[in-house]
Each structure stands twice: as structure tokens, then as C-alpha cells.
């Protein structure tokens, strides 16, 4: 039976079951993003002190829901779609055990709904970290556990598909770099979910009374084994997306397969160890372990990101120069397709992730500097640069590609799509920068009231902190607008976009309605051949000098900002 369709626009082959699963995972993810985005309105309009919209109980409930729906449900559902794409589509292979994949999907869905029900019942406002001994309702934890098990099943289907591809010899040579990156993400996911199970299952048992006590510090150490490494899944996934989009948009070829793959391997080796930077100011954690963990473990992962940060734009530059855009250092960049949201989204993601997310992450993850940053609003500002303008924007850029290729719809409102990465990326960047500032002044995260209404004792933040939060909030609202534009274009295109032929249809492809047999007409795609060899051009100079300039700019910013923070640290009370 023929089960593949060839996309006439992109040349990709889609296996029927894999296609349905990609669609359903991606769409469910986008729904979670919608929920998270709506909740972000409540978060931002409350943290804008002059507006201070929600009452305290609602604020904490909304913030819990925002964090979980955005960080866990949106990103992980979407990543499942990416995994299936990287294995089945890129390797031209049938999906292994589609039924299991569906079972995994439904477990995730049930888990996500269950957790949301717990949160919105109002008795589980424990934030996504759910630190013990504050207790949520049992189905809060159970929902997360089911979600994790479901994700694990889909990850194993991904591995199964790789095995099938190898056995059925659907490709020549080694797996493509993008698939390699996805494998990295999947391996880290297994580790992550294992940590999650180790801590969440006892916590669930505790919430229903089977276990009387969970040590709060032990919880933190293990929880961050989950919380930290899950972020590395995101990094691996969005770096893979960068490579993919660079390849599709520019025909860019990795500058060196060896270097890029080695950098991915560094993620596997080191990132998962690096959870100590979340517990740098906790009681009784040994100095040696903290230093080992933040340097050896974290910095080698940082090194990996710095490598990707050079090789991704470098590959684009090389490809652009080959096309003749060789004037000066930056003609290749100036003449890049800035009006194409696939490119602008990807590039803004790359820059904000590196310049803001990366630098602030390393700075606050420094053993001693964490003292002046821990739990301030600086922390959410940092990770909005990593998971929002970094991961989320990369995934948004990918969506613009998937609408025609996977969903076979023409994008509606292209001018909205064109502006979207700028509005979203720009708005969030404003929010991030100003909240980094407010955090530096000590403004607390997860905090309902900067004025401390009702407190027995008074403390006042400097007036400038209020201004920073207000401007940040305006940036946040812009970001929410950008998120709305994304949802408008994607959902609108799926519903109303012109159908591209041949099309599997959206609903048909997963409710089992009879499919037009002409759509899936390919029995077995041709062998995926190795990339064509290119003639070696030996130049004595740099292949991508413009990128090197950008990399040096990053380094200088990094060094300056890093030492400024040491200086700031030196001004606080001596302690030891």
C-alpha cells in the first residue's frame, strides 16, 4: 500500500501516520501556546504595578498556568512534531508503531488537561516548580506524570523510527545533521523524564498521603535535574531548527559536520549535569560541586552553543557569498530575505538567544554572582530570552514553513506574518531588557505586589524600578500582540487558507476519514542520497568573516557584562 506523499514544493516525503502525528502534536502545542498567551495578559498587567490588574490568588493561579502551558505543554508538544519530522520525513522512513505514538499523544493530552483542571480549580497555585512542602492537588502531579510518560512513548517511537530507517536502508551514509540534533534532544529527553519520574511520583504519593515527608532540598536537587535538562531539550531542538531553516532557505551547508555534531554531543555529555546553577544559594551545597557543575559541566555546554552560534550564521554567510553577495562584510546579511518570516524569525531567535539569553544565563549561573540575582525578576527575563525569543520564535519560524509543506495550505495574511517576528521578537526583547534591569535592582519574581500592601513592615523599591517594570510590561503587551498575530496567521491559514494540491486535508488526516488515495501515492520514496559533493575552494582567509565579526561582538559584550556583574557583586555585604 502506498503510504507516502511527496510534497511538490519542498520535495519532502511525508509518511501518512507520521504526518497525522506531526499535525496533531503541532496543533495541540499551538493551543497550549494560546492558553499561555492569554494568561500572559493577566501576568503582565498585574506585574505592571500601576495597573495591578488581578487579585493575588488569581495572579498566582494564572502565573502557574502560564508557566506550565508555555514551557511544558506548548514546547514539548511541538517538539514531538519536530522529532517525527526529523526521523520520518527527513529520513524518508515510515513511522515505527504509529499506534504507540498515538497512545503517547493521548496520554500527553490527558495529562495536560488534567493538570490544567487542577490549576484552574484554584487549589494548585504552586508554580511550575511545585516546590515541596507547598502542596498541590494530586491530579496536578498526576497530570504532569501522564504527560511525561506520553512524551517518553513518543520519544521511543522516534528512536524506533530511526532503527527502521537504518534497517530498511532508507538513507545513505550518516543521518543528516538536523536529525542528529533531534537525536540529541531525544536522548536528553529520556534523562529528563527519568528525573521527573523520580521526583514527581513520590510527590504525587505524598499528595495522596502515602508518603509522609519529602525533603525540600532533595526535591530541589532532583527537580532541577528535570527542570534544567528539559531546557537543553529545547536548545538542541531549536538549534536543529536553525540548521534546518538555514538549509532550506539558503541551501546552506554546515561549515563542518564534525564541529556541529561534536557540539551537539557536548550537550549530551554536559548539559544534564549542569543543574547546580539553580541551587547555588541553597543551604549546604558544596562549593566544589557548584564550581565543577557550573564550569566543567555548564561551560562546555556553553562552548557548544557558542560553536553553533558561529556555524549557523556562518553557513548562511558562506551560502550567500557563493551566490555573489560578497561586498564588504555584511552584504550577505543585508540582502537576506528579511521580509520572509521564516528567515527573520529564525535570525531574531539566533541573535536574542545568543546575545541576551546566553550571556545572562552564564552570568547568573556563576557561583557567587547568583547571590545578587537569584529569584529576582531577572530570572524570568533571562529565560524569556531563551525559551521565548529563542525556542518559541524558532518554532514559529518553522511553522510558517510547515503551513504550506505539511498542512498544504497557503498562508493567509502574509503581511501579518511578515511583521510577526519583529513585533513578537521586538516586544519580548523590550520586556526582557527592562525586566533584567528591574531584577538588578532586586525586584522579586513571582510576586504580586511591589508595594507590599498589607505588610507589617515597609520596604520601598526605588522609583526607577517601577518605571522599568512598566516599560517592560508595555514590551510584554507588544509580545502578546505578536503572539496573537502568529495564532491568527497559523490558525487562520489552517481553517481558511487556500488548499494546495495535493493535500491530505487537516481533519481527514487524523480522524480516519477515507483519504483520497491519490494523495499518498508513493509506495517507497527513493533512497535518500548523500548531499552532492561540492568543489573545495581553498581560500587562505576566513570563509565567513562577517559572522566572525558578529561572534567577536558577542564575545566583547559577554566579557564586559560579565565583569560588570562581578563589580556589582563586590559592592554588597561581605559574606562567607
Amino acid at each position: 500500500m502506498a503510504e507516502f506523499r511527496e510534497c511538490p514544493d519542498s520535495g519532502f516525503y511525508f509518511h501518512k501516520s507520521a504526518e497525522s502525528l506531526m499535525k496533531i502534536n503541532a496543533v495541540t502545542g499551538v493551543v497550549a501556546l494560546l492558553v499561555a498567551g492569554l494568561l500572559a495578559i493577566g501576568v503582565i498587567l498585574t506585574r505592571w504595578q500601576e495597573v495591578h490588574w488581578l487579585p493575588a490568588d488569581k495572579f498566582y493561579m494564572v502565573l502557574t498556568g502560564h508557566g506550565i502551558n508555555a514551557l511544558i505543554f506548548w514546547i514539548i508538544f511541538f517538539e514531538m512534531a519536530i522529532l517525527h519530522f526529523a526521523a520520518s520525513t527527513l529520513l524518508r522512513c515510515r513511522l515505527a508503531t504509529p499506534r504507540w505514538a498515538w497512545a503517547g499523544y493521548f496520554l500527553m493530552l490527558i495529562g495536560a488537561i488534567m493538570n490544567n483542571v487542577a490549576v484552574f480549580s484554584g487549589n494548585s497555585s504552586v508554580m511550575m516548580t511545585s516546590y515541596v512542602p507547598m502542596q498541590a492537588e494530586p491530579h496536578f502531579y498526576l497530570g504532569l506524570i501522564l504527560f511525561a510518560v506520553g512524551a517518553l512513548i513518543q520519544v521511543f517511537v522516534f528512536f524506533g523510527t530511526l532503527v527502521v530507517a537504518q534497517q530498511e536502508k532508507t538513507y545513505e551514509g550518516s543521518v543528516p545533521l538536523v536529525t542528529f540534533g533531534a537525536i540529541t534532544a531525544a536522548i536528553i529527553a529520556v534523562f529528563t523524564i527519568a528525573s521527573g519520574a523520580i521526583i514527581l511520583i513520590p510527590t504525587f504519593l505524598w499528595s495522596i498521603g502515602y508518603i509522609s515527608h519529602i525533603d525540600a532540598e532533595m526535591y530541589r536537587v532532583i527537580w532541577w535535574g528535570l527542570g534544567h535538562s528539559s531546557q537543553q531539550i529545547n536548545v538542541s531542538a531549536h538549534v536543529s531548527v536553525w540548521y534546518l531553516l538555514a538549509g532550506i532557505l539558503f541551501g546552506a551547508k554546515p561549515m563542518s559536520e564534525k564541529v556541529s555534531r561534536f557540539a551537539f554531543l557536548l550537550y549530551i555529555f554536559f548539559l544534564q549535569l549542569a543543574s547546580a546553577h539553580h541551587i547555588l544559594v541553597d543551604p549546604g551545597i558544596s562549593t566544589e560541586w557548584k564550581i565543577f557543575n557550573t564550569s566543567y559541566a555548564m561551560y562546555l555546554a556553553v562552548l557548544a552553543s557558542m560553536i553553533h552560534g558561529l556555524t549557523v550564521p556562518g553557513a548562511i554567510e558562506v551560502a550567500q557569498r557563493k551566490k555573489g553577495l560578497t561586498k564588504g562584510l555584511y552584504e550577505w546579511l543585508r540582502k537576506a530575505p528579511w521580509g520572509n518570516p521564516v528567515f527573520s524569525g529564525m535570525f531574531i531567535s539566533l541573535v536574542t538567544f545568543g546575545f541576551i539569553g546566553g550571556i545572562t544565563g552564564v552570568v547568573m549561573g556563576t557561583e557567587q554572582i547568583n547571590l545578587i540575582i537569584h529569584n529576582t525578576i531577572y530570572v524570568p527575563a533571562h529565560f524569556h530570552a531563551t525559551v521565548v525569543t529563542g525556542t518559541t520564535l524558532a518554532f514559529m519560524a518553522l511553522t510558517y514553513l510547515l503551513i504550506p509543506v505539511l498542512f498544504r495550505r497557503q498562508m493567509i495574511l502574509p503581511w501579518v506574518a511578515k511583521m510577526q517576528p519583529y513585533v513578537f521578537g521586538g516586544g519580548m526583547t523590550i520586556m526582557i531588557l527592562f525586566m533584567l534591569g528591574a531584577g538588578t535592582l532586586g525586584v522579586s519574581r513571582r510576586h504580586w505586589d511591589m508595594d507590599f500592601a498589607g505588610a507589617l513592615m515597609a520596604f520601598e523599591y526605588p522609583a526607577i524600578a517601577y518605571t522599568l517594570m512598566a516599560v517592560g510590561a508595555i514590551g510584554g503587551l507588544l509580545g502578546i500582540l505578536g503572539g496573537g498575530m502568529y495564532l491568527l496567521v497559523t490558525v487562520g491559514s489552517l481553517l481558511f487558507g487556500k488548499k494546495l494540491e495535493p493535500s491530505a486535508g487537516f481533519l481527514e488526516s487524523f480522524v480516519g476519514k477515507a483519504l483520497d488515495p491519490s494523495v499518498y501515492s508513493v509506495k517507497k520514496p527513493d533512497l535518500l542520497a548523500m548531499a552532492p559533493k561540492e568543489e573545495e575552494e581553498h581560500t587562505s582567509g576566513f570563509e565567513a568573516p562577517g559572522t566572525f565579526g558578529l561572534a567577536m561582538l558577542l564575545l566583547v559584550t559577554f566579557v564586559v557584562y560579565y565583569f560588570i556583574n562581578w563589580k556589582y557583586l563586590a559592592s554588597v555585604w561581605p559574606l562567607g
Partner: protein
Amino acid sequence: MTSFLPPAERIWWKVPVGRQELIWIAIALTWCIIMFLMMPIWHVYGKQNLSTEAYQTTPAKFGAKVEEMVSQYKVGEEAGVPIVEPPVGSDVYMLGRLWQWYPVLKLKKDQEYRLHLSSMDWQHGWSLQPDNINLQIVPGYDMVLKITPDKAGEYGVVCNEYCGIGHHTMVGKIYVEE
């Protein structure tokens, strides 16, 4: 076109790496090593290092020590919370509980104290403002650090780990006198 195609060379790991990448890797690695060295260096030359001294405790035990200090060195009261002025160099205690930092401390500038911190219930965040020193306060652990307040004035202790509906009312005080 190869990011999503199998590499052009079957033995891709033998393809030599370009000069530009090698230089960047060398620079980045050097920077990582410098950042690594900064931490031990600060332990030797810097003044802000978190001690690792901590003991397992219980709310009852820790609470008793706090009360003992309060009864010995109480010098006043603020908003119903005792103000305590313990001797220079002594062990001073502050506990976090829903939703209060207890007691208020009065310390001498440029003198060292051994500060003990713990929580009676949930996790809290000890955020000394405006100096901006932030510590995680975990129930069951008595965290001990030597502090040397080096600026006189009135400090707020904000709770910056979410601890329930009254989290924002959890503000404590430390006075530092010349």
C-alpha cells in the same frame, strides 16, 4: 543543502575543520576557562562567597534557638515583632514563616556575625534589599553564613520565593548602625 541531507562525505569526521572555526573554538574555550577560574579566584580574593555551613534541623529546634536569642537580647518591638540586638560576633537567627521574617535584627556596621536562617513551613526567599543579596530558605535546614554589614542603614528583607497568598506581605527588617 546538507543540513537535512546525509553528509556529502561518508567519512565526515575525517574532513579537516576550517581555520575560522578552530580559532573561534579556541577563543570560546579560553573564555570558558577564564570564567571557570574566576570562581575559585573569588573564593580566595573576593569577599562575597556563600558558606556551605548548614545543618539539618526541625522547625521546633530552630524556633527554640530563635526564641532564646530573642529573650536574651530583645531591645524593642516593631509592628509586634521583637527587635533584637545580639552581641557582635555572636550567632544570630532569623526565621521565615507564613508570612513574616522574625525577629528584626539590629547589627553593628563592619562587624561580623554568624547568621542562621531557616524556614518554619514552606520555602522562602531571603532577599536583602536594597543591597540585593538573595538566598533560598529551605525548611529542615539551618543555613549559616558569616555576614559583615558594611553600610549603615535600614534594610528590608523581602520574601522572593513564592510562599502562598500572603507572600507579598512577607517583609522583614534589619538595622545596621554605625
